[in-house]
């Protein structure tokens, strides 16, 4: 093969690789997809008249290093906040924002009623029971994980 042919081939491969990387980035909302994280038991508790809803899921880290969720966003809701419910010493209910949620290496963390949850504010479209809400979780390493959560009736607890 001539030198010119070799160059053409390199050029072609580079274009192909570029397109592939761009495709991955588009699929994950422009960030690199988060690998090694598995999502289990995801659901959203539907509430009527567009009231803020809660999203729940368990994140399982199959990797050797701790991962940290630092935020979340969604095309389905105007705002998504990572919160934790807690009880004051007087027995009253409170919530606090969580800026860094640890998913331990070879471990898991549960977002579940009464504890960590995604607060989903202002649905941008009609999201009903039986539907699906799509949420993107951001990790501290810049990667992103898109999760699809089934929307369930409010009278369930899991």
């Amino acid at each position, binding site marked *: 093969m001539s030198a010119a042919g070799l160059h053409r081939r390199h050029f072609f491969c580079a274009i192909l690789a570029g397109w592939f990387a761009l495709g991955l980035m588009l699929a994950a909302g422009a960030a690199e997809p988060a690998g090694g994280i598995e999502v289990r038991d995801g659901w959203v*508790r*539907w*509430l*009527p*008249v567009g*009231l*803020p*809803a*809660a999203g729940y899921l368990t994140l399982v880290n199959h990797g050797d290093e701790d991962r940290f969720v630092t935020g979340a966003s969604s095309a389905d809701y105007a*705002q998504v906040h990572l*919160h934790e*419910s807690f*009880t*004051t010493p*007087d*027995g*009253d*209910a*409170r*919530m606090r924002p969580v800026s860094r949620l640890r998913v331990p290496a070879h471990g898991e963390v549960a977002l579940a*009623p*009464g504890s960590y*949850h995604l*607060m*989903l*504010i202002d649905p941008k479209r009609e999201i009903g029971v039986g539907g699906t809400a799509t949420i993107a979780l951001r990790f501290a390493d810049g990667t992103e994980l898109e999760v699809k959560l089934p929307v369930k*009736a*409010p*009278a*369930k*607890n899991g």
Partner: protein
Amino acid sequence: MARLRLLAAGGALAALIWAAGCSQQRAEWALTDLSGHLPDLQFKLKSASDPDLMAEDFRGKITLVFFGYAHCPDVCPMTMARLGQALHALGDAAQGVRILFISVDPKRDTPEVLRGYARAFSPEAVGATGTPEEIETLARRYRVAYQALPPDANGNYEVMHSKAVYVFDGAGRARLMISDTDSVAAIDHDLKALLAEAKP
């Protein structure tokens, strides 16, 4: 001296609770016995279907009273779901029970919002609220704490609120307290006992 008075007061309260416990013929409650510790059910509030919702409207029904707010995404729905499940498990007998969700956030929770909210959990659930003064008086009467916290950059705000649910019998007497650790089975057990009491 002050310490002594406090001890004496504490002793008297303990004796009172003990005496109240002894006077109860049936002590096999799964929930916390509140008898004699809270005033009878009394209020005037607003619901979507009744601008003058009164405690008298709930006479003859066992009423589960919960102070919360509809913009609370996690704890309030979790509690309402447990109450709704307990009523669902009662079958037709659930018609003798009402869930009364009282919003401590009257600024955002209109009676219309509360109607949709309550019904999402049970056909026997009623959502109500009142003026800030009415809510304050009612919360003080039942020793319920609540406080709206400063809003965030988006204008969202959280309301700290009590987690307890009070159970009043058909005569409006405070009988039991449901805490967030009580199971649906425990709630059902005691609701059945209260419903059986009401039968002649």
